[in-house]
């Protein structure tokens, strides 16, 4: 909360502003002060809070599972190992049910996606003002702690999946096979190649965008509702806050699951023979 007693609008826009670092035409390399400056920085800027929190949660995930990998035994599991193995088996189940090909990469990919997105989404359970207030005390003006409510993060993951789709399609079917698949589906006739091409390319490009926007939309909407709720008087907040947070147990897990499953399904299509 910058300044004294901000209006509701200021409060909301402040909460929705990332901590952006970039090259400003007037100020040079600096943190953006407000949405206007961030926009002026254009593409060559980076949302430090999004990157920081996503990397932190990613490292938390890797640390946890590295711990599992180090301590795992083929005997009787116990404690944390049990819980982590459950998650592991869960993502392994996604592969078993949704993936038909053979790949050393898709399993780890599904596990990483599910856990990482789950951890990133989970940051939403922290009280909405807690971390920004601490950051404010430390002199940091903006702090959005949920990386998945930043479209950069979700679309970034979506496009990473997109690149993998392209890579595996070409690797498994050859460039000509991939091109043929784009040209002769759904209508197997040479005269309809342009039509097919347009259709298939749209389908192809929609995959990563829908992945990213679905996750972003859910998380962003949830965040906005949390901000709205925190505009209520403090003694009334819990009436809406608690149910909404409980509801997010479902949303957070479900969105992580959907992202992981759809990625696996998209990649599975690259391994199928036609």
């Amino acid at each position, binding site marked *: 909360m910058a300044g004294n007693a901000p209006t509701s609008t200021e409060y909301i826009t402040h909460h929705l502003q990332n901590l952006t670092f970039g090259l400003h035409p007037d100020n040079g390399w600096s943190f953006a002060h407000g949405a206007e400056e961030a926009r002026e920085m254009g*593409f060559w*800027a980076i949302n430090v809070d999004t*990157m920081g929190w996503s990397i932190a949660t990613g490292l938390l995930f890797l640390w946890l599972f590295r711990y599992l*990998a*180090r301590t*795992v035994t083929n005997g009787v599991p116990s404690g944390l190992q049990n819980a982590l193995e459950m998650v592991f088996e869960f993502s392994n189940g996604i592969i078993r049910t949704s993936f038909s090909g053979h790949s050393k990469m898709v399993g780890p990919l599904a*596990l*990483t996606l599910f856990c990482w997105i789950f951890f990133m989404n989970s940051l939403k359970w922290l009280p909405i003002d807690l971390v920004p207030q601490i950051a404010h005390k430390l002199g940091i003006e903006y702090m959005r702690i949920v990386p998945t409510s930043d479209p*950069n993060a979700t679309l970034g993951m979506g496009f990473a999946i997109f690149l993998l789709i392209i890579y595996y399609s070409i690797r498994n079917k050859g460039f000509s096979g991939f091109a043929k698949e784009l040209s002769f589906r759904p209508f197997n006739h040479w005269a309809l190649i342009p039509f097919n091409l347009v259709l298939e390319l749209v389908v192809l490009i929609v995959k990563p965008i829908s992945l990213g926007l679905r996750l972003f939309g859910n998380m962003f909407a949830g965040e906005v509702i949390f901000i709205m709720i925190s505009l209520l008087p403090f003694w009334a907040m819990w009436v809406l806050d608690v149910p909404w947070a409980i509801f997010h147990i479902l949303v957070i897990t479900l969105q992580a699951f959907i992202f992981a499953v759809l990625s696996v399904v998209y990649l599975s299509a690259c391994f199928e023979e036609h």
Partner: protein
Amino acid sequence: MNINMTLIGQMIAFAIFVWFCMKYVWPPITQALNERQQRIQDGLEEADRARAELHKANEQAEETLRESREEAARILEKTRSRANQMIEEARNDARAEGERMIANARSEIDSEIQQAKGELRAQVATLAIQGAERILESSIDEKKHREMVDRLAEEL
């Protein structure tokens, strides 16, 4: 909320995380889980085998028990018949012995009777002759009459 470099940063971070997971996390865990699966499978098979063996051993034990029971019954039966036989034999022996002893005694008695008869005959003859002598007062030719008296004594 504009699109910027964060997009690419996120892609790179994602790639690194997946790579690390693929390299250092996934293989040891899958290996351990597969090993565990194998161990559980082995254990179950072992249990099945052990159960079958136990069943077999039980049957064998029952078989042995039945056989030994039959054997015991047979031995007992044999012993009993042997004992009966021995008793029978002993009884027969005893009976034979008894009969033999009775026969002996009887023959002894007979011979003694014969002897006594002989002696009696001799004495009767003597007594008769003496009596007759006394009656006839030596009027009788002893040689002639002895023959007669002896014949008489034999008729006794």
